[in-house]
């Protein structure tokens, strides 16, 4: 096993575990390769850390809530200080309570604030690493033998905030080569979620000429019409020349070609 394969398998292990033989292969490689071993340790720590991350990051609402509480507290203190002129001499215990409460409150607030900035730095760091992880996991899933896994790879790619070029070209490959029509369909949906880059456009136009499934043919025709993609004209005409086209596809195709004229 080479290092690239080992890295893929590490992500696979985190994703859905490895069977005995695949796990042993990986471990054998890790035992022999210091750099992969180091990477594996780092990944273990990362995944552990991600499990420990609080699900909600402190947001504006928390801040607002905190300010509101602080304000209410200040008002409360101001009010009590008015009364204190009469009440304080007789109730030193109350004074002590207010003082210690303020101290505790200050400590907690200070702690919360520091924790928050630290958390934010950690979260930002984890965000970057998470992105790399998703990237690896997506690419790995898209190469699995099981169609269900490849479908998961497609939906993983959809969970990435910004799909990078490598993932996009893997999706284009899936659209053109995947043996399963449902995976091709999902890959197409994922590719068209965002405005297509020139290379993705080319991949989709190419797909028009060789997709054999009517479901995909119609999805591709609709894409060309909705995006007013004049570059798709040639592939559409090529498709029209196919003698065995499904009647429903032919109807849609004629409509589409007319709409370009």
């Amino acid at each position, binding site marked *: 096993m080479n290092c690239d394969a080992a890295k893929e398998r590490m992500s696979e292990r985190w994703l*859905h575990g490895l*069977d005995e033989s695949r796990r042993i292969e990986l471990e054998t490689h890790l035992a022999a390769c210091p750099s992969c071993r180091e990477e594996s340790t780092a990944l273990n720590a990362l995944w552990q850390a991600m499990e420990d991350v609080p699900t909600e990051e402190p947001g504006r609402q928390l801040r607002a809530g905190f300010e509101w509480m602080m304000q209410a507290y200040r008002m409360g203190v101001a009010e009590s200080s008015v009364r204190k002129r009469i009440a304080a001499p007789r109730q030193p215990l109350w004074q002590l309570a207010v003082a210690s409460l303020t101290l505790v409150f200050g400590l907690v607030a200070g702690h919360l604030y520091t924790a928050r900035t630290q958390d934010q730095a950690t979260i930002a760091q984890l965000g970057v690493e998470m992105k790399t992880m998703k990237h690896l996991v997506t690419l790995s899933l898209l190469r699995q033998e*099981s*169609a*269900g*896994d490849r*479908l*998961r790879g*497609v*939906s993983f790619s959809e969970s990435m905030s910004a799909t990078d070029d490598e993932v996009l070209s893997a999706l284009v490959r899936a659209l053109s080569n995947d043996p*399963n*029509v*449902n*995976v091709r*369909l*999902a890959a197409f949906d994922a590719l068209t979620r965002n405005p297509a880059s020139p290379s993705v456009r080319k991949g989709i136009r190419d797909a028009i000429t060789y997709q054999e*499934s*009517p*479901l995909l043919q*119609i999805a591709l025709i*609709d894409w060309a*019409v*909705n995006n007013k993609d004049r570059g798709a004209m040639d592939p559409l005409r090529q498709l029209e020349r196919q003698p065995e086209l*499904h009647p*429903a596809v032919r109807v849609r195709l004629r*409509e589409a070609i*007319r*709409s370009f004229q």
Partner: protein
Amino acid sequence: MKPISAFLIAASLLTAAESNAQKQTLSFSDPAAAKRLEVSLVNGSITVKTHAAKEAIIEGNVAATQRKQPPPGMKRLDTGLPGLGSEQTGNTIKLHAIHKANVTIWVPAETALKLNTINGGDIIVEGIAGEIDTNNINGNITLTDVSGPVVAHALNGKLTVSLSKLDSGKAMSLSTFNKDVDLTLPADAKASVKLKSQNGEIFTDFDVTLKGAPVVEESKKEPPASNKNSSPRTRTRTVRFEKVSYGTINGGGQEIQLTTYNGSIYIRKKK
């Protein structure tokens, strides 16, 4: 790698053709490990059932109508064709036939299946717990009491899937072009569904929480500049409806995509 002679099965099927179907047993090389069965037919039906035994039993029936009767005074030489070819690699058993052949296979419940046929028959699966990947061009697909993840496409037939449980973690996708997609889930199944029916409707007895309304797009085609002054009545107008809905069942969970063009979608609660 242990190829099993296609000849043996074909020969046994030759005799089967004239009489009844003949049974053939194939063993997985490691009964404890993950098992896989792949069947690829051009013309015929595939039925897969489960049994408690560890091997696969194949009952093939090459239709007698496909065979020429020997001319008077002559007899057929058994050359091993036409029939059912099989090959075994590790724990994967593959069956294929070019001529009309209906096959029924019994396998252990946890076997993963990949089943494809084009003409002349349905694909029927009962009780399988392994992953199912299946494709039928002109027939129906009916999967009953299955519990593995399913990825299925029936181009011109109906697709009916009844799941006895839903917790595989893998994504599922069911699609047809002309007929209905009919999915039955356990009452407590947690699923996130993506539904798309271009010309049909969607029915369910689950409480499906839809995220947002279906997108309705309308685009007007402006007339060419030379016709700018023509009356609006002569304008070409294209109205398009993009019918994709996202929803959750029991709070959401496993991803399931259901797609059809001319059919309707049914999501039923298992009674």
